[in-house]
């Protein structure tokens, strides 16, 4: 173990945290406001990845623009899903909501496999930012791009929630939907908006997946598991907490994989062991509100 190897592992893990943070950003907003556990969020990410890939491969569109276009497209798709599907399910039992989004996840995944096959596709895009090379430490430029976009998405989510009128309404509606309704807030509209913003964030995250990973129907499955872990770690609906959660998860995974023998298998498990320990000590997550009983 050398200073260079530790620096490399830490820096690369933090850039991977950017990808995890981007996927978790939209999910934490949606779950925090509507309390809908959207299992299909990973498939929204997958659709964003496919769209960015095609826009680049077929129309030579820059991945930056591809990400933006995927954000808009998945925002619109989320609006459709909310209006046709989730708005009805929201009025039902919580278990039905869970099963409904799980069903939507499986449906989207299978449609993608049927339409596009399970084969992985790779977007051969040039590096969006310059690489960092300091002695034996090397960080690819696209990893910086991922970290940058992940951080930006979080800041945007935070700004929407804390500095806009809709953000105030979102917080009000999530704390007590009935009271918010009596206060004249269109709770349904607020829920829809948070779901659309979450979907748009998933679309942008999909662009990041296409940039540093590969595009495949199942690509969102592991990522959404990590995203749920991150928002549980940070505290449900707590946006800065989720950012810290993403960094903890990525560092635990990356450092274990690098420095523990046979660590490639342990990395994922250690990250979730950490999550379990945090939840045992603080059930509301690191930055969640403690509920007194």
């Amino acid at each position, binding site marked *: 173990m050398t200073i260079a190897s530790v620096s490399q592992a830490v820096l690369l893990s933090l850039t991977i945290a950017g990808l995890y943070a981007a996927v978790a950003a939209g999910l934490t907003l949606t779950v925090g406001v509507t309390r809908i556990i959207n299992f299909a969020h990973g498939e929204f990410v997958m659709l964003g990845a496919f769209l960015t890939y095609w826009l680049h491969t077929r129309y030579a569109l820059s991945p930056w623009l591809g990400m933006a276009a995927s954000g808009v497209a998945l925002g619109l798709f989320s609006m459709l899903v909310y209006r046709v599907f989730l708005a009805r399910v929201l009025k039902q039992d919580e278990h039905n909501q869970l099963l409904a989004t799980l069903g939507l996840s499986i449906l989207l995944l299978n449609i993608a496999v049927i339409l596009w096959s399970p084969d992985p596709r790779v977007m051969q895009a040039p590096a969006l930012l310059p690489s960092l090379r300091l002695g034996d430490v090397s960080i690819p430029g696209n990893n910086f791009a991922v970290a940058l976009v992940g951080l930006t998405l979080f800041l945007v989510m935070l700004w929407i929630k804390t500095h806009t009128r809709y953000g105030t309404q979102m917080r009000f509606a999530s704390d007590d939907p009935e009271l918010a309704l009596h206060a004249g807030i269109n709770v349904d509209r607020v829920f829809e908006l948070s779901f659309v913003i979450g979907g748009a964030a998933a679309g942008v995250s999909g662009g990041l997946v296409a940039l540093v990973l590969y595009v495949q129907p199942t690509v969102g*499955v592991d990522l959404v598991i990590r995203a749920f872990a991150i928002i549980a770690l940070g505290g449900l609906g707590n946006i800065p907490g989720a950012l810290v959660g993403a960094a903890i998860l990525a560092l635990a995974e990356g450092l274990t994989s690098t420095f523990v023998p046979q660590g490639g298998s342990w990395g994922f498990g250690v990250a979730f062991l950490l999550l379990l320990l945090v939840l045992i000590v603080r059930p509301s997550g690191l930055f969640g509100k403690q509920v007194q009983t």
Partner: protein
Amino acid sequence: MGGFFRHMSGRRILATAALAWSVTVAPVGAQQGPIKIGVPLPLTGALAGGGNQILWGIQYAAEEVNENGGLFGRKIELVTEDTKGEPNTSATVAAKLATQDKVDAFVGGFGSTSDFALLSALQRYEPIFVHAGSSSVRLEETFGKNDWYYHVYIWDYHRQKAAVNFFKSIPAVKTLAIAYEDKLYGTDGSKFTQQYAKEAGIEVVMNEPFRAGTPDFSPILNRAKGLNPDVLFIIGYSGDNIQIARQAEQLGAQPKLLVTQGAGEKRSDFGPAGDNVVVIDLWSAKQSTPGLADWVKTAEAKRGGEVVSSAVQGYVAMKTLTDAAKAAGSWDRSKILANLGSMTFDTPYGKVAYAAAEMGGKHQLITDKSMIAVQYKPDSGQEVVWPSDKATGKITYPAK
């Protein structure tokens, strides 16, 4: 009968004979109907890519027979069922094909876990089963000893044996680093690779697992960089193979030679990161095999695109069955099984015959001896570089 014919003119005798022949011979085929072949394959779900390729190969081989008049005047009818790659669905599909459709034989199967359920459900019927896909040794150990079971695709250890034989063919290769996905496929692969490498006198300096689909392979690449092995061998799925080559290039951590096990990925998927990467594979349209170029040309014209290795598996599975049936002269189960076991078949792999395998399988068609190593060249092309009798070019080593 002789008296009856004595009262008839020559023309009437001929007409009567023709009528009798048409009544007794020609309609036999029609009365018996087509020969029904059950084709259970994953056509949707995670294994659909390979399943659909195998299906095309089976259909192509059946069409070839039907276009030439069928088998003993009977057409081949494929009864295709989607196993979805799920054990429960596979067992249901097996029962339907055997009892409801009453198929004459089975050709297909892909995905070891679901095929275990498929074969478990079928074994009581003892059908002729020509298995196109699946490589788990557990299948060989459980079903391989049956007289009715014929397996086309390699077993897991054949890949590793071929890989180590390829490493041995490069004189400078003395050390090996292995990175494997941490489920059954990769773990078994790693175990067999270590065993064969030890027998070959190659030192294994690293044996690291990874989680399939992981976005970050830098821990493995950096560890391998420190050890500087003569070969870094990846046992993973196609996405992992591409991602590791891509990150090796981005991090400047390319080993002397990066070798992967072919898992369906294409040269174009790798881009420049694929330069000089070697893929251990079953078959290449470019390999030097007598008559192959013409077969590929015709098949690609029919396919309207590239014919990939898994499609060839399906084609060969169907072809061995129809060749064995043709040689039997009628649909005689015992004769067909005997022919499958004794004949040599002319296939896109070359001339091959079913023979005993190492872990108890009685009828195995493709082994490590049929396998090849393909090196991706920097001009976006690729060359078969091993074994020498199938090679179309020379290996670039070290690659970096």
